[in-house]
């Protein structure tokens, strides 16, 4: 969790909003630092987290999580974190007999299917348990990332439907939050990815967009973060609708500053 980002978003683990869909996207840069931020943020907020990790292994997230002050192994052991390791379990579909449909069942199907098994996995993972264990505050679904599902053969509409169902269950029914990462293809013409990105943008309450600098790579400024709050057009709203900051990623933190105000150039 990066305290400076919490300040920009005007939120803390104790008083985060519930029932929201947050969209993370990156263009010409790596936005995974935002995923690590939200993972540690919600674990510190004592939420039940279901993390669908399709890109990296568990140990990768664990190592970064330890730098940010959370222990994923312990969280998984005590039942706070349900971790679907996509890289490992994708192999299991082919080499192990499955009694019930596997969350990544679509990999076995010849034509582009739907993500109903994955949704059922998420719903099962986050459903409130009535037993007397320590109550978690609210459920959170984190997906890293959705663009890889397009590469694996699913259509953009299938992924949008999956997020729709997740939003209906997690955000509306269980009053939890959903955070997803999508890559923006940018110059490359990728219609399916554009439909996915625009469709999700319309469903989101908050959009965080990490962009590389237009002028290229820089040692002291790693990129630019655009924050867009999608709120109904209210005349009395005091907060800005959209903010832009530049950032530099360090070993254990990320520092944010206004455009052109990097300490290196002042």
């Amino acid at each position, binding site marked *: 969790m990066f305290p400076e980002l919490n300040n920009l978003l005007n939120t803390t683990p104790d008083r985060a909003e519930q029932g929201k869909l947050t969209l993370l996207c990156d263009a010409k840069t790596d936005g995974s630092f935002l995923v690590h931020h939200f993972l540690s943020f919600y674990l510190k907020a004592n939420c039940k987290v279901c993390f669908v990790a399709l890109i990296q292994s568990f140990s990768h997230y664990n190592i970064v999580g330890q730098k940010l002050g959370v222990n994923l192994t312990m969280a998984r052991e005590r039942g706070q974190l349900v971790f679907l390791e996509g890289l490992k379990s994708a192999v299991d579909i082919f080499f192990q007999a499955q009694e019930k449909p596997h969350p990544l069942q679509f990999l076995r199907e010849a034509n582009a299917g739907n993500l109903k098994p994955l949704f059922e996995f998420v719903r099962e993972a986050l459903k409130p348990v009535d037993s007397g264990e320590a109550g978690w505050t609210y459920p959170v679904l984190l997906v890293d990332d959705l663009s890889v599902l397009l590469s694996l053969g699913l259509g953009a509409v299938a992924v949008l439907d999956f997020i729709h*169902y997740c939003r209906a269950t997690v955000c*509306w029914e269980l009053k939890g939050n959903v955070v997803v990462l999508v890559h923006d293809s940018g110059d490359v013409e990728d219609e399916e990815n554009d439909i996915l990105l*625009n*469709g999700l943008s319309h469903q989101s309450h908050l959009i965080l967009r990490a962009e590389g600098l237009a002028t290229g790579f820089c040692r002291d400024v790693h990129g630019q973060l655009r924050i*867009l709050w999608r709120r109904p*057009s209210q*005349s009395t709203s005091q907060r800005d609708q959209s903010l832009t900051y530049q950032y530099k990623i360090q070993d254990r933190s990320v520092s944010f500053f206004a455009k052109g105000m990097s300490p290196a150039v002042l």
Partner: protein
Amino acid sequence: MLDSLLALGGLVLLRDSVEWEGRSLLKALVKKSALWLVYHDFFRDPLNWSKTGEALPGGPLGALRAMCNRTDLGPVTIALDSLSWLLLHLPCTTLCQTLHTVSHQDSCPPGDGSPVGKVHVLGLLHEELHGPGPMGALSSLAQTEVTLGGIMGQASARILCRRPRQRPTDQTQWFSILPDFSLDLQEGPSIESQPHSDPHIPPVDPTAHLTFNLHLSKKEREARDNLTLPFQFSSEKQEALLRPRPSQATSHIFYEPDAYDDLDQEDPDDDLDI
């Protein structure tokens, strides 16, 4: 204009974008027009994944088609949130045909001759999701198109209204939605909030503090104004050219060749080496 959108029948398209969302305007218009609200909940399970048997047969399209065959009279407003969802899941032609049938019900009265109330269809469409083909098709079906935009936190709606046998009208209305979803029409962004130069700071004179003089005295200015440019075709010049020349001395060239000049007409420059 914005509050009387639903007075005309037919399809009203509400086009929004990621930056300027239209759902709250849709809710405000529904609140304004609805006396009695029937809510079809397709949010929780649109594709019938839960298979509980509660879902209406045929999904959202079936529900929409069922509205085509209504037997009760009286005006009705059908609000669709969103048309984009329908357009992504159904073929464009199917959706267009269904919308056309639903929104033109009042032109085909039932057999007993009693008039059917007006049908208004209000659809929310997300502009970035669809290509020009489907957008154009829906646009041509619509009687009214409202495109959302804005400047500096102030939302605006551009209303393009096509009435039969009348010229289309195009208006822009600034508005905001109050927390209770009522519509607040406004004048437009205030002029003071737009950035412009501060009138209290006098403009800087660039000709001051120079090492050379750029100013003209009065005499110099008069002389400059009286100067005629050499290639300017004034009326005096025109007169002079048109008037036939009196015995004006033509110009002569006086040339006295000296001893070394050898005027050879065939080689005047004396550089041919033959």
